[in-house]
């Protein structure tokens, strides 16, 4: 782990007065390497290391804290701060129906999250409508319908119609039936696919969702920044959900995404079951990234 590696680096400098640029160089190299191996983006890492250096150089090592511990403390605190300090909640509109739109790359976990949220809010006594707005992927509608049945939450579908029409149809049904929460499941798409990205902004313009959640796979590498930046620029994403955190990926994409978009991380997927959903905890994520 990073702390062990840093301890080894700092053994050489026991009993030091102040941290200088020279004597922390080795430690900063270790930290940089740990972040890059955790898939934190190259540039985000560079900026992070510069911040740590600026704070560490000249810091007095007080009697009770070894230099290695001081650096770890600075790194940990800075990371938690960058990840957002505290848990961010999903926002629901005062006047129903509130709308959540789910988007992201192919295979990231959108349809599964749609059903997980359906269950979460059903348990909070909300009347929920899930919307199958992915007319492209084979059996995508059937997948959401199957999941909806498992949790006894209604799924609105219009087969292979265009997504804006489907979402519009869902809103008018929701108004008639006093639905509290509508969740749009959309098709996976590449952030460079202009036509499909425009489709999402068309849905946004028509429906004005209260939340636009970007689902990102925790295993994503350096490309996370390109994806998040494009989705955010196009849609003004309100929150990010990191899926598949039940694996052993360190999840550096979280730091990258938050670093380049400022969007709050709100939830994490921790499994395939529809109850496998947790709030995002910045401190736990920081420890996971640092290994």
């Amino acid at each position, binding site marked *: 782990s990073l702390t062990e590696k840093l301890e080894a680096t700092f053994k050489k400098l026991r009993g030091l007065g102040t941290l200088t640029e020279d004597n922390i160089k080795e430690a900063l190299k270790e930290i940089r*390497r740990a972040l*890059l*191996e*955790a*898939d934190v*983006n*190259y540039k985000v890492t560079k900026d992070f290391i510069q911040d740590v250096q600026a704070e560490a150089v000249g810091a007095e090592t007080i009697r009770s804290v070894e230099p290695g511990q001081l650096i770890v403390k600075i790194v940990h605190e800075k990371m938690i701060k960058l990840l957002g300090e505290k848990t961010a909640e999903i926002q629901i509109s005062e006047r129903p129906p509130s709308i959540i739109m789910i988007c992201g*790359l*192919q*295979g*990231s*976990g959108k349809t599964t999250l749609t059903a997980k949220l359906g269950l979460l809010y059903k348990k909070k006594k909300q009347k929920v409508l899930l919307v199958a707005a992915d007319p*492209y*992927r*084979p*059996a*995508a509608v*059937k*997948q*959401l*319908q*199957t*999941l909806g049945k*498992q949790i006894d939450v209604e799924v609105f579908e219009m087969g292979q119609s265009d997504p804006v029409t489907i979402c519009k149809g869902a809103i008018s049904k929701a108004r008639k039936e006093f639905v509290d929460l509508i969740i749009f499941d959309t098709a996976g798409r*590449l*952030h*460079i696919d202009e036509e499909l990205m425009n489709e999402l902004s068309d849905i946004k313009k028509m429906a004005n969702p209260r939340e636009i959640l970007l689902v990102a*796979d925790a*295993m*994503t*590498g*350096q*490309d*996370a920044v*390109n*994806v998040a930046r494009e989705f955010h620029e196009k849609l003004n994403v309100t929150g990010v959900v990191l899926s*598949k955190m*039940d*694996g*052993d*990926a*360190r999840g*550096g*994409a979280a730091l990258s995404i938050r670093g380049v978009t400022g969007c709050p991380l709100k939830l994490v997927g921790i499994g*395939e079951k529809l109850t496998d959903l947790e709030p995002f905890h910045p401190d736990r994520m920081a420890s996971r990234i640092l290994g």
Partner: protein
Amino acid sequence: VGMAAKVDDNLLDEIEEILIQGDVGVSASMKIIENLKKKVAHDNIKDAEQVITELKTEISLIIQSDRDPGQLNEVGPTVWLIMGVNGTGKTTSVGKLAKYFSDSGKKTMVAACDTFRAAAVEQLSIWAERSGVEFIKAKDGTDPASVAFDAVSAAKARGIDILLVDTAGRLHTKSHLMEELGKIKRVISKVVPVENIKPKLVLDGTTGQNALSQVKIFTDAVEGCDGLIVTKLDGTAKGGVVIAIAEEMSVPIDFIGLGEQIDDLKPFDPQSYVDALFE
């Protein structure tokens, strides 16, 4: 790439940045750069363009594999066991491969051994229709190994050349699911010789360093991964972790996925891959 003109540390830093941002990873990048430095010193290379050419050559040699990805066993059926973590593109790749093999005149069958994920069987049946190949399925919840057994037996009986077995996505950290894969392979080996069974790992091209542990653990679970299929290289991700994988383990890359249509699958070509990495 708009790189530095001189052969100096600046150029090497830029190369490191490209490799790291391409998901090659720290240790594989450092190895590549160390070898490059030796080459530059040994051959006294002064021209930056030439350094890049050497670099590309070095990487191509790492990821090279001279076998034909579509090679089947003399006596059929050859069985491709398609596995991987969740959402990498396994079912879609099975659909694309079915068309690829049937277009090349091979009698092809697909088996729906993902009996767990919602609508997984329906999804594969649509792909089987699109590619016009035989399709074996069972009710949701059926033991995947028994579906595989039935499929291989049918494939043998019908003189099938290639059977593509779709399996459920599973994280390599879930040991009971990894054991299930081993069981599927063992059951198949009761019907066809083990050398006919080709486990293929589907990796998502946007995955970072985690792909290394995926390859290691899936390879252990089925006692030898025959090849990789790397999907979603039609985005901006470079999939450079395959270079780190090639450095550490000798698992060749067979095919790459370049989109969601049935023809968006190509045999892996190292040269064009390396060119794309440095674009």
